[in-house]
């Protein structure tokens, strides 16, 4: 019993076990859903990956980025550029990794500039970035201007269908293929991020978030840690963008408005700053809430246009309520309550 407890205490083991269990559960859930629900699950997966990266940046290292949509655009355009022909030059997984690498490089450049700045100045620079990237893409040749690039999703590989069929007994159609890819990527990303958060690097980030002067005196190089956090979160955003291109099947400038960046930030806040579970919960809310609220709005007698605007009102209100009433977010508040109960019992 104590041996099990000791092994469970190793973060890597714990995260891997949770990851494998989650993978199996996800396979069964996705195989039982309709194509429409699978498309929604794919959306949730890429939002959650981006929100997970932003959790590391904002929740852990305390830097605010209002421009993560720009890095999603970088990832999405890289994937779309490599997948614009029916016969892709590289395997899909490699294309996704290339998208991550490109976003990582761009993130490195922006991160070096951002690390010199404080609070509102970082926010201003990243906000300008969120507007600049879609406009630049519109201007440059070879990216399809306003219409954007169409993405041709490669056929589902034989071995993939076989494995899924072996486990769940269901065939993989092209729509759910993207959902499977998204959730596998999500689980891998979250295992990596969870390990990073529990490591020395994660502790360094928390230290500089809580008190940068003290952290510097303790021997932490502020600039390097800040840039590292920024790069990690942009890599996650690049992966999310790649999956977004695959699930939307197009990469166009209108897909990356400033609202997207703010939406991501709200996903991080809704669940609770600094918690990956929170990021997952926040992105679930963002994916499934709009439809529910819109239906509720039309049944309450609002016009279609009006009820479509109801969803942002609701999550804007939730965002404000979370900050005013439960600044630790939903997950953080539950954790506090749980710890308090255990302390009393």
């Amino acid at each position, binding site marked *: 019993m104590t041996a099990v407890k000791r092994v469970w205490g190793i973060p890597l083991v714990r995260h891997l076990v949770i990851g494998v269990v989650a993978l199996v559960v996800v396979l069964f859930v996705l195989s039982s859903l309709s194509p429409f629900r699978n498309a929604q699950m794919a959306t949730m997966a890429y939002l959650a990956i981006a929100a997970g990266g932003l959790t590391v940046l904002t929740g852990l290292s305390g830097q605010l980025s209002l421009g993560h949509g720009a890095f999603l655009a970088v990832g999405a355009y890289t994937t779309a550029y490599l997948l614009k022909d029916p016969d892709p030059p590289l395997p899909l997984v490699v294309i996704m990794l290339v998208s991550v690498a490109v976003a990582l490089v761009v993130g490195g450049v922006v991160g070096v500039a951002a690390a010199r700045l404080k609070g509102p100045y970082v926010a201003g620079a990243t906000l*300008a970035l969120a507007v600049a990237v879609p406009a630049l893409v519109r201007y440059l040749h070879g990216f399809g201007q306003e219409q954007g690039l169409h993405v041709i999703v490669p056929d589902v590989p034989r071995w993939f269908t076989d494995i899924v069929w072996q486990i769940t007994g269901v065939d993989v159609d092209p729509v759910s293929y993207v959902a499977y890819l998204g959730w596998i990527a999500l689980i891998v990303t979250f295992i990596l991020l969870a390990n990073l958060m529990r490591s020395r690097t994660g502790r360094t980030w928390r230290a500089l978030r809580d008190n940068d002067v003290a952290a510097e005196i303790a021997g932490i190089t502020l600039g390097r840690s800040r840039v590292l956090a920024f790069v990690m979160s942009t890599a996650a955003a690049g992966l999310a963008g790649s999956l977004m291109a695959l699930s939307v099947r197009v990469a166009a400038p209108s897909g990356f408005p400033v609202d997207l960046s703010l939406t991501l930030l709200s996903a991080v806040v809704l669940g609770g700053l600094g918690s990956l579970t929170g990021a997952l919960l926040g992105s679930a809310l963002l994916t499934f809430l709009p439809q529910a609220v819109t239906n509720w709005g039309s049944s309450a007698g609002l016009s279609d246009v009006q009820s479509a605007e109801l969803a942002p009102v609701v999550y804007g209100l939730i965002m404000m309520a979370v900050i005013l009433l439960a600044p630790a977010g939903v997950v953080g508040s539950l954790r506090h309550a749980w710890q308090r109960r255990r302390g009393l019992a």
Partner: protein
Amino acid sequence: MQQFWTTLLGGLTLGAVYAAFALALCLIWRSTRVVNFAQAPMAMVTTYVGLEVIDSTGSYWLGFVVALAAGLVLGAVVERGLVRFVEGKSDLNVVILTLGLFVVLHSLAAIVFGQDYKSFPAPFSLQGLHVGGHNLAITGFGVFTLIAVAVVFVLLVALFRFTDLGLKMRASAFSPEVARLLGVRVGKMLTLGWALAAVVGSLAGLLVAGGSLVFPQFMDSVVVYGFVAAVLGGLDSPAGSVVGGLVLGLALSFVSGYAASDLVPITALGILVLVLLVRPGGLFSHVAERRV
């Protein structure tokens, strides 16, 4: 040559609007150390209120005054009702609160006022002025914009530099505890700071809207460029806001006039990054000691 003057004067008017918006941000920053991301939607709402008044009474100036008054009330309500509760907590909380308000106001306006484009009247001519037989590239409304922003700037500087009230406001922002001990009603000063900033923001809204179309997203470009202008000048300085606004307005106007309008956002980003890499606190920043 004609195109040069058109671009120059157009850039100045545009810059004046950014400057007004940046002044509003600077005012809140000076009085509460908060960046109000909901500034633009707040101005959008007050502009709609103004438009309703203009449509029902037919008087531009009545609508103008009502919009500014609505800004005053809205600013005070937002500070007293929302921002007050996260005062002194982590900076991130206030930012997220104002972003939440941004989203809510944006969508509420679309529900209440509708998504349609509505035309907003202008009090002055929208034709180029004639002086001595020459056709100038600036409109009557453009002149009004420049004058209005200049007046606001002078009033704000006078408020902060020469009046007792301005001193109290600066003290409350600089060191709330010491100010409270010395008998300043810090809470009231904060509310007043927000209210005044919202008035300036409403003015920016009216200037953007005049002679043009109003719809829930009409302030969106000003959000980004106004903010960039404020950061460019150094959030702390009203003069910096004005200079930042004018520099940005001129630069963007020349880029869109002589190159391509799609290059405007990347130019704004380029200017911002260049300035901040040389002076991380903006053009007009003071060197501040850091408190450990």
